[in-house]
């Protein structure tokens, strides 16, 4: 009987259209009509958080194959769902905990074209640069890596061999690779168990300033096979990508969204006040950006883009994942200057969003937050003790933490790569439709790779008593979840109900913080980070500086271990904003910190006797960032 119910449920989801609601008035459960929901015993609200990877490269990405990546989209999917895969350097790798969903997102620029260079496509070999890359690719991994860095630099500086900009060549190469990819993803999508989305990466980076977007389709082969990926070789302008999204939805009736990432490498461009062409942002741009880009990827292997010490000098935890990633743009062709930070980091962007909304009536930066990998090995590994590297030269071995990327006088070190982050999604089932819908309504959060479980609700009348009953049900009934809009509810302050449960296989929690951003009476953006729940509250108190003292440190570097004798398995609280002003626009999101744990280079020392460069960071406090809840004073 049980089995039948499940089958009916799954097939009904399969029949439901993908993400049919617009972002602005998105509510949970828009996919299942109310009457149907009752008869199908579909959960009334998301009861599970699903962890997935939305950003991963394989042999189909030009830079990845040059780096030495030989794993295919199929290998990547098999690894993600828990199979043993032979890595690019010949190691057997298997995830202890498989992923729930996945997007293999290869660079759409000449997708599969790297293979043609490798194989010596005669058309390409006529070009001396492509021939040079061909030869390097058949050399050592170091030579391949050099070729890849040359490719990225040439691409960023608009100096690729002419042939690579030729649309006819692109169509010939891309078409068959794209169709093969689609059929592979379709074969691996297993509703209810393992969701495989189709997607790719739009790799816009004018002058090396990163404007990359991940593209995710909700749909299956019947719709996605009708189009080819849109690439930055066609246009670097994200607005053209949105045109393509519109055309796709009109042509197929399908659904698609874009996820910008690595604002930290954009040298101020990602969350600029201006349109792509440098003119002041228009209302139309703001509306389209909010609609097509409901999420931002804030943490991944190339650093953390939530906040920066320069922007938030009072936030002692904002330095996570900054080393090496805040010195320049993507290809290090331009150094970073302080005036650029504000256009790069998510917290500042959320504040800018309020400012622009006050002026134009629409908030372009009304986004939820996720983490992802951006690993170029085909292997999505998010934990510190299983990191398979950003690129093949970074796969497990003694010297990998020292590998340099040295260009134009700037240096990035191997140890500065982060393990993959994760996208945590509160969905009603593990299906393309349910997960995509949750992404559209921003009921998601970012983690740096841990699988902690976080609920956050905003409302007007929550109290501690709610935790004694079915508080999740109460949260949905009397409030909005993360990613939602809190409508004005009177003169008193909004109340937030937050619960954070540790990763069952991970570290205890240090504290829960609320990050509040708002516009003051003069329209100036402000922010505040408030400790709202923490472990051992009988011993740890809020100090004179308004902050809770550090949680301590149990990391033993000799063995690369830590102990959960500090911290707490769960932190929960009901918090009301003491400085709330009903006339002012604001947003609130939660940041949850784990106790300190060893970083991946610390494991390398123990396992391989790695000698680490001076300054290598060996510990960190892993964390999660929830999507904000917005309070719109106008309602």
């Amino acid at each position, binding site marked *: 009987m*049980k089995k039948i119910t499940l089958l009916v449920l799954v097939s009904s989801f399969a029949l439901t259209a993908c993400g049919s609601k617009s972002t602005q008035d998105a509510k949970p459960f828009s996919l299942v009509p109310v009457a149907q929901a009752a008869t199908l015993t579909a959960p009334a609200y998301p009861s599970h958080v699903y962890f997935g990877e939305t950003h991963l490269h394989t042999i189909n990405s030009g830079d990845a194959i040059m780096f030495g990546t030989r794993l295919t989209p*199929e290998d990547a999917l*098999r690894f993600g769902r828990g*199979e043993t895969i032979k890595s690019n350097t010949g190691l057997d790798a298997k995830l*202890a*905990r498989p992923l729930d969903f996945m997007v293999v997102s290869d660079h759409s620029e000449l997708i599969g074209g790297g293979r043609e260079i*490798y*194989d*010596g*496509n*005669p058309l390409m*070999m006529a070009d001396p640069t492509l*021939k040079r890359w*061909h*030869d390097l690719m*058949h050399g050592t991994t170091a030579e391949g890596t050099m070729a890849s860095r040359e490719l990225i630099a040439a691409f960023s500086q608009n100096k690729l061999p002419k042939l690579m900009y030729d649309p*006819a060549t692109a*169509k*010939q190469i891309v*078409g068959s690779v794209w169709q093969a990819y689609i059929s592979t993803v379709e*074969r*691996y999508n*297993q509703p209810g168990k393992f969701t495989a989305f189709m997607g790719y990466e739009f790799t816009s980076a004018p002058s090396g300033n990163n404007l990359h977007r991940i593209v995710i389709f909700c749909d299956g082969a019947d719709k996605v096979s009708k189009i080819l990926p849109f690439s930055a070789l066609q246009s670097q302008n994200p607005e053209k990508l949105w045109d393509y999204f519109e055309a796709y939805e009109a042509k197929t009736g399908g659904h698609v969204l874009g996820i910008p990432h690595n604002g930290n490498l954009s040298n101020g461009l990602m969350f600029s006040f201006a349109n792509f062409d440098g003119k002041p942002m228009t209302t139309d741009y703001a509306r389209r950006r909010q609609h097509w880009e409901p999420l931002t990827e804030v943490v991944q292997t190339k650093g953390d883009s939530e906040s920066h010490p320069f922007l938030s000098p009072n936030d002692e935890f904002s330095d996570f994942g900054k080393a090496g990633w805040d010195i320049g743009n993507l290809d290090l062709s331009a150094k970073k200057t302080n005036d650029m930070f504000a256009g790069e980091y998510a917290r500042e962007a959320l504040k800018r969003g309020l400012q622009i909304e006050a002026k134009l009536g629409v908030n372009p930066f009304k986004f939820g937050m996720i983490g992802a990998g951006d690993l170029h090995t085909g292997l999505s590994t998010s934990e510190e003790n299983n990191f398979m590297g950003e690129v093949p030269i970074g796969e497990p071995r003694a010297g990998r933490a020292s590998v340099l990327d040295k260009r134009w006088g700037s240096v990035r070190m191997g140890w500065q790569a982060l393990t993959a982050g994760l996208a945590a999604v509160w969905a009603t089932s593990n299906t393309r439709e349910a997960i995509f819908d949750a992404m559209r309504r921003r009921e998601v959060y970012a983690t740096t790779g841990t699988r902690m479980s976080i*609920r956050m609700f905003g409302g007007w009348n929550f109290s501690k008593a709610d*935790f004694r009953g079915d508080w999740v049900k109460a949260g949905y009934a009397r409030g909005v979840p993360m990613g939602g809009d809190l409508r004005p509810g009177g003169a008193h302050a909004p109340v937030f109900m937050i*619960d954070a*449960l*540790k*990763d*069952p*296989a*991970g570290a205890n929690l240090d504290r829960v913080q609320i990050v509040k951003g708002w516009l003051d009476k003069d329209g100036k953006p402000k922010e505040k980070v408030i400790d709202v729940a923490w472990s051992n509250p009988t011993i740890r108190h809020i100090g004179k500086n308004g902050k809770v003292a550090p949680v301590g440190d149990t990391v033993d570097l000799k063995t690369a271990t830590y102990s*959960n004798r500090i911290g*707490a*398995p*769960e932190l*929960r609280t009901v918090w009301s904003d003491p400085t709330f002003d009903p006339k002012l626009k604001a947003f609130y999101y939660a940041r949850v910190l784990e106790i300190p744990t060893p970083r991946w280079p610390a494991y390398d020392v123990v396992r391989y006797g790695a000698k680490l460069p001076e300054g290598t960071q060996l510990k960190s406090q892993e964390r999660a960032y929830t999507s904000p809840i917005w309070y719109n004073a106008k309602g």
Partner: protein
Amino acid sequence: MPIKERLAPLLREPLVHFLLAGLAIFFFYGVFNRTVDVGDRRIVVTEAQVQRLATQWVQTWQRPPSAAELDGQIRDYIKEEIYYREALRLGLDKDDMVVRRRLRSKMEFLATSEAENAQPSDADLQKWLDQHAAKYAADPVFSFDQIYISAAGGDQAANIKAKALLKQVQLGTGTDGIGDNISLPQHMETAPLSDVSRAFGEDFARALKSQPVGAWSGPITSGFGLHLVRIRQVQAAQKPNLDDARQAVTNDWRDAMRETRENKAYQALLDGYQINIERPK
């Protein structure tokens, strides 16, 4: 034995597929693309070839070529053919690393695409399933209750507390208000072990499997602390049937076959060679 039955096993042989695919491609290129004889100084652009150039154009540009554009394509085809033959005449295909790699990759592509397109029969899949039954076995399914005991005061204190609580609940006076608060499920209904593991962690799930059915027991350890558990019902791992596991089985079969078939195809060619390796002394 009728000829059809005798042919059947042969038709399943990877080598036969490989050779047939090669023959098909050879035929295709021979008829539609190139004359093989490089000494021949006559070039005939056949009607079929012109048609093919036009079709290629449509595939790339989504519209038919104009007369001038088609002429351009034909001119380019002739130029390519002449350069191709002259290059072969000059022996440029020999000792050129790029050409060697290109040809090798074409051969590999033939072998791979043959394996990619292989369609397993139900019998193939059933055989695979039987060979790997444990992998596809449905999870055992548990219905159970749990009481959480925090280890915040140290492991020893938690253990003592857990044992005392166990005695209390074993009396059957109810479980209301017993144990510490945590937002883990207090009851799970017909939950596959993988769901138990995702909520409570692997250690808990492993320990749960060896707990008695129908009575409170424990404590067992998780990443959160200690737990008393009472399994109400357990359904052992089910022998998988093909219809339930078809998708995973097909994917795994294909994945395994691809490598095997590629290797077999190469081995068949390798067998036709005598290899002498003279290593430097």
